[in-house]
């Protein structure tokens, strides 16, 4: 693990100290991690306001809330004096391109923290999640109820003393419809307003999302969305698996672009270990991540256009996707759930004709993009459906915690690939497309252009694809080659230790972020020094998108809600984890 240094970049630290003194102090962190300040819970709300509004701080984007139960955490970070729960707020400043972690603690008995929803509205669902899974109460939260688990669930699943084998009787009591009825004044009446249940098995949700809408005619006057139908507690499962074993689970987060999830996770663990992966592996990860982004956008646009009635585009988009899947299959044997990345590199080398194959795919993708472009971009009906519907202003997008194409469509040019380059992104030339309207059409255009930029990146990387191994030679992390295992004592020991004990990741904490297809995909990993992660918290990019969906669609029509749901691209696997 790299050296622990006090975070050097905190320009606002002196001011922070002057204002809050002991209650908010910078913490020493490894260089790979994001700068951190430790804040006393009593000052949390004021510090948050300061961080958002002070010109030297300006953390305008709320990214994530990772709650950690330190009950069984050994080592320096273990809990003392009753402060069992740690809450890590991840913030980002679009002005200064800087991440910040605000860490605070809550006591073991009746953990309570002030809500930050009035500072960043985007904290809303993250706090609900923390309440649901970790049992931290957020005082002043407007709607603190369970989010990912059923209302009849007992206990908080991510607490370390929660027994995973328990079963609860969850009845079909519908909280959402009654809650919504309380929000609107007029009672349901066939001729005035009607409550429309949208999902979880509605064709345009493409998964298991649910929205209950109160409609006046077809105009939505109130709505509330609900998720959790695909919740499988990925984070809890990760805690009982070795670091390598978590990779297949990450494929199931955003199943439209699994390669990005896998390499993002591997990169997080690698930076905790301080392992450098070979250049070839980095280049291949870049290529496949860009192809995955392309597939994701293809699925998003194709399905979205089906929802507005333009059926044919779906096949044009999916043909490119199928061909990319074939490339992935040739690389790792799987099409959808690739599990190709490994901590320390890749599971195996790419096929011999990888470069030609990529070039052929680039041509095909260009062609398919052109087809969709020709059918839709200048089509009057498509423009009528997309323009001025589902509008998210720049201020709203920031306050609601948007990242990725949806944030860029609202006029903020934040792209992790540009602003904190990883893999090969600092060696290639590409543009970050932005639009300013923030409506569905802007999101459509941004995605279209991003696909072309992805192809540009792929072309540049495969032109310079280096030869060499695709795995690190650090055998504490990577399985040694079979000849070594069978012929040498060390090889056998390494093999045994990696398989049985897992990779010994040094105790510590990291927030590592990747540009996923939908936005910033963050992995907040806590290690206690054993072969299994102590806590994995994923920052799913579409979580804040769906959280604000009910706000975006209000005032629009049911058809607009469908179009908006498509352009936001909510992926249930990643939303619900």
């Amino acid at each position, binding site marked *: 693990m790299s050296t622990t240094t006090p975070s050097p970049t905190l320009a606002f630290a002196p001011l922070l100290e002057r204002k809050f003194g002991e209650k908010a102090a910078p913490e020493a962190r490894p260089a790979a991690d994001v700068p951190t300040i430790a804040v006393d819970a009593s000052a949390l709300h004021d510090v948050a306001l300061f961080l958002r509004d002070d010109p030297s701080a300006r953390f305008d984007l709320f990214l994530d809330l990772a709650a950690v139960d330190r009950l069984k955490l050994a080592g320096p970070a273990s809990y003392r004096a009753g402060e069992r729960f740690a809450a890590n707020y991840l913030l980002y400043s679009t002005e200064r391109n800087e991440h910040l972690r605000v860490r605070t603690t809550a006591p073991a008995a009746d953990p309570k923290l002030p809500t930050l929803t009035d500072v960043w509205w985007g904290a809303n669902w993250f706090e609900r999640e923390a309440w649901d899974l970790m049992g931290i109460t957020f005082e002043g939260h407007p709607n603190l109820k369970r989010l990912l688990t059923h209302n009849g669930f007992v206990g908080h699943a991510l607490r370390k003393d929660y027994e995973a084998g328990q079963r609860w009787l969850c009845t079909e009591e519908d909280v959402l419809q009654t809650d919504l009825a309380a929000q609107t004044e007029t009672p349901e009446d066939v001729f005035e307003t009607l409550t429309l249940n949208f999902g979880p098995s509605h064709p345009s949700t493409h998964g298991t999302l649910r929205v209950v809408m109160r409609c006046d005619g077809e105009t939505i006057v109130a709505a509330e969305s609900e998720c959790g139908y695909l919740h499988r507690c990925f984070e809890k499962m990760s805690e009982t698996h070795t670091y390598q074993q978590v990779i297949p689970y990450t494929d199931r987060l955003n199943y439209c672009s699994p390669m990005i999830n896998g390499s993002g996770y591997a990169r997080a663990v690698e930076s905790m270990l301080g392992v450098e992966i070979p250049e070839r592996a980095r280049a291949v990860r870049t290529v496949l991540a860009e192809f995955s982004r392309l597939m994701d956008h293809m699925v998003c646009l194709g399905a979205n256009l089906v929802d507005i009635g333009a059926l044919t585009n779906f096949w044009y988009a999916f043909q490119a996707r199928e061909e990319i899947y074939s490339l992935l299959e040739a690389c790792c044997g799987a099409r959808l759930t690739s599990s190709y990345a490994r901590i320390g590199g890749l599971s195996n080398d790419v096929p011999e004709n990888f470069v030609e194959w990529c070039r052929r795919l680039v041509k095909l993708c260009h062609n398919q993009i052109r087809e969709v472009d020709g059918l839709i971009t200048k089509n009057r009906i498509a423009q009528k*459906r997309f323009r001025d519907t589902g509008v998210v202003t720049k201020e709203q997008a920031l306050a609601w915690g948007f990242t990725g194409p949806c944030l860029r469509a609202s006029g903020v040019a934040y792209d992790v690939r540009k602003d904190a380059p990883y893999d090969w992104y600092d060696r290639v030339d590409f543009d970050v497309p932005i639009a300013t309207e923030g409506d569905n059409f802007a999101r459509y255009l941004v995605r279209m252009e991003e696909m072309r930029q992805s192809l540009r990146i792929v072309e540049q990387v495969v032109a310079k694809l280096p030869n060499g191994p695709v795995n690190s030679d650090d055998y504490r992390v990577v399985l040694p080659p079979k000849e070594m295992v069978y012929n040498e004592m060390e090889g056998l020991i390494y093999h045994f230790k990696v398989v049985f004990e897992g990779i010994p990741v040094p105790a510590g904490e990291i927030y590592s972020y990747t540009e996923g297809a939908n936005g910033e995909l963050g992995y907040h990993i806590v290690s206690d020094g054993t072969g299994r992660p102590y806590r994995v918290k994923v920052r799913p990019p579409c979580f804040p998108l769906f959280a604000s969906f009910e706000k975006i669609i209000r005032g629009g029509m049911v058809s607009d809600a469908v179009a908006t749901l498509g352009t936001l691209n909510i992926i249930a696997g990643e939303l619900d984890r």
Partner: protein
Amino acid sequence: MTLTLSEPLFNALLAVVKILFVWAMTLAALLPNLIWAERRVSGLIQDRPGPNRVGPLGLFQAVADVLKLMMKEDVVPLYVDKVLFTLAPLITLTPALVTFAVIPFGSSIPITWNGAVRDVPLVIADVNVGILYIFALTSLAVYGIVLAGWSSNDKYSLLGGVRASAQIISYELAMGFSAAGVFIAAGSLRLPAVVEWQHAHLWNVVPQFLGFVVFAVAIFAETNRIPFDLSEAEAELVAGYHTEYSSFRFAMFFMGEYANLIAASAVVTTLYFGGWSLPGVAFTGLWGGLASIAVFAVKTAAFIFLFLWVRWTLPRFRYDQLMELGWKVFLPLSFFHLIAVAAFVAASGR
């Protein structure tokens, strides 16, 4: 054995033969092939094969589909209005089938009877209010959709039904006004007269292009096809008015949609593309009569292809945008067109 028939009986027999012929053409020949064509054309457009396994070129796919649907369990949900629920698919299918009664599908065929040769016109009923009959019937078809939406007792279906009624109101007027130009030019409401006028002069699509455009768009709205399939809108309303239908009841909606499509194409062909006629060709005699039927069929098929092509190309309108287009664009356009045609006809003194 010599068969002697009285005049009325002979006429009645002729009508029955014609009805059987037209229905055999639409129900047995065109409809299954249309279902097949829809799927093959969509395949062609979408760069995939489409159904090609059942029978030669997959031609029996429609038969297989209908058989499958007939063998499915006929689920009638508990809370539906059973009478209307049963009636609705029939109401959708019937008007489409009886529309063909007034459409001239060929010139005439000479038949020798009682020693005299007489030309039998190839139209089932040559009524002098042909177009009114068509308008009256096609407006009826929407009742099937509205009633299906209402009787299903389901919010999505209800929304579909409401959309359908709003849609038909928005486009019926524009459709009527644009078609009126045709009858002013022909000087008759009889459809055979319209065809004969076009045969003698030129196809209406040339002088009345504006009317044709409005009429064609209105036809799309009337048949609930993309870009106007709002009442169905599977991604928004979960198939809208026929969400609750299954088995053969669903198949009837399905067939109704395609029968409507054929009827609509036949009407457009008759009104704007010269019906069975070809410029400069006189269809006389038995073979001429048969050839005219073929010409009519080809023209109708071409228009059906246009329907399919549009469906697999365009996105769908939004409810309010569709009404805006109907009331604010097409209605004024059709007014303008009607006045222009009337003024021209009055000025030319015909």
